[in-house]
């Protein structure tokens, strides 16, 4: 911790440049730089408004065009309520699995040396750049009930993966796998091992050290990781669609319900469901953006 504090001043953002430097320059240049600042600001705000802000706000507008009737219709449709419930159950399981393994793997990657560590660390990122369709296909090839590698054996043991909830959980876990790890690893690296060593030397066992020293240090990183995984898990579509078979009322999750309702010309229900999903994911982002600066100040 001590050396973290010592290096702190170097890490202050280089903010004063644009503000302080022009003071020494001639007025014409200052005018030009103000103009440039405003131009950049305008371009960025316009771009983000047309690409993200306006489209996303339209989903709320479309949902509440006729008051709450669209939401009512959607929430009284048993296939949608089923899809929402399934989505929540799947997301919670996926997040829990990723939380346990995410923290575990982060500890291993940061605190221990072993062969193949660099390879593991690089492979962990793979799920972020693999297409959801490839994820779905890959899981079907291995766990497919008829001619997958392990599927038939599992099915004989009475355990169906593909076209059932376990498959959806696997697909969802796959796509959100790196999120907790990528939040925790940098923080774990930065807090260092001095305090842990001190605790150990004072007689704390591994579990005590983890609970009393390590966990409080990475608490907020874990929280972001979980919130982001939750957002990602609730919204998984492509991979889940393939492994679930998209059976309405059985394996259809909320994102698939949006697609189906839209294609069945039940636009109000589609928008209402989409609104619920969007609201949760935006809430997740807002939560993270509120906690993050607080935590960075504390560090």
């Amino acid at each position: 911790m001590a050396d973290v504090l010592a290096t702190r001043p170097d890490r202050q953002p280089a903010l004063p440049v644009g503000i302080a430097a022009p003071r020494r320059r001639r007025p014409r240049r200052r005018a030009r730089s103000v103009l440039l600042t405003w131009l950049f600001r305008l371009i960025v705000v316009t771009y983000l408004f047309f690409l993200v802000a306006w489209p996303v706000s339209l989903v709320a507008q479309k949902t509440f065009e006729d008051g709450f009737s669209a939401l009512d219709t959607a929430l009284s449709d048993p296939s949608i309520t089923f899809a929402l419930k399934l989505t929540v159950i799947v997301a919670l399981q996926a997040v829990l699995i990723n939380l346990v393994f995410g923290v575990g793997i982060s500890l291993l990657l940061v605190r221990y040396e072993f062969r193949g560590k660099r390879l593991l660390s690089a492979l962990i990122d793979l799920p972020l750049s693999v297409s959801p369709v490839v994820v779905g296909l890959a899981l079907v090839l291995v766990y497919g009930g008829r001619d997958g590698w392990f599927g038939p054996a599992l099915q004989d043991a009475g355990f169906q993966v593909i076209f059932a909830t376990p498959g959806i959980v696997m697909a969802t876990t796959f796509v959100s796998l790196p999120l907790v790890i990528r939040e925790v690893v940098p923080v774990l690296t930065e807090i260092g091992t001095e305090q842990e060593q001190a605790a150990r030397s004072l007689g704390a066992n591994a579990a005590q050290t983890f609970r009393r020293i390590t966990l409080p240090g990475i608490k907020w990183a874990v929280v972001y990781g979980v919130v982001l995984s939750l957002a990602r898990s609730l919204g998984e579509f492509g991979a889940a669609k393939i492994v679930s078979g998209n059976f309405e009322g059985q394996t259809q999750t909320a994102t698939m319900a949006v697609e189906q309702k839209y294609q069945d010309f039940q636009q109000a229900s589609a928008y209402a469901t989409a609104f619920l999903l969007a609201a949760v994911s935006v809430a997740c982002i807002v939560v993270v953006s509120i906690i993050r600066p607080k935590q960075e100040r504390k560090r």
Partner: protein
Amino acid sequence: MTAVDVAAPARTARRRRSGRANGLTATSGLGLGVSVIWFSLLVLIPLSAVLVKTSEGGWSGFWTTISNEQTAAALRLTVGQALLVTVVNVFMGTLIAWVLVRDEFFGKRALEVVIDIPFALPTIVAGLVLLSLYGANSPVGVNVANTRTSVFVAFLFVTLPFVVRTVQPVLAELDADVEEAAASLGASRFTIFRRIILPALVPAISAGAALSFARAISEYGSLVLLSGNLPLRTEVTSVRMLSYIENGDLASASAVATILLLVALVVIVALDVIQRRVSRRG
């Protein structure tokens, strides 16, 4: 944000070897074993199954699938639009990062949230929201639904955060002294940017560009409703793959998936190399 932390060279550069890493103990060895088995069952074995399935068809099977007119068109469209979007992202992403770091104005916090939305918003919802602004009943009178432009717009939306989030931390940590020195020696703003700021940002920009390219070519959800999936015209690789899967032709789907997987691997290796280069210099 998170996807980007993967590459964030700033973090890596900042990493110090704080304390000696230990060898494995019995408990941590067990933990490692369990984690690796879990990771293999979930990720590695399924992904290698894709490669095995492709190799079963042999080189000729692979080539027949890829050179199929419809599949080739889908690949060309996806890669072409992804490259185009990556170029736009390099410029816009850097500009957005610049404004977020160097500028102070009311509502900047809101912009930060807006940039992360594409990352968290379910892709099918992303497709739906873009459709409601740029689709048939567009309030601005722009209808790109079912055209190639819709693929471009969808890619642009889902890849927005990558360059911004990789460049932002690096830009925030740049040393102001060098820029001030250059300015006091009479360098123009443009010269300072080109000679001092840009070289420091290049690794971050390329990392962001790689991530955004990888994300774009693998995109599926946002295009389902938006692009119409017209064969030979607006059908992207992921959609093509899905129609192979739905027709039960897993071998052809695997052949196309192999290409996407290889691109993903190339991107990961590139990111690793960039990170290492940056952390060595830091």
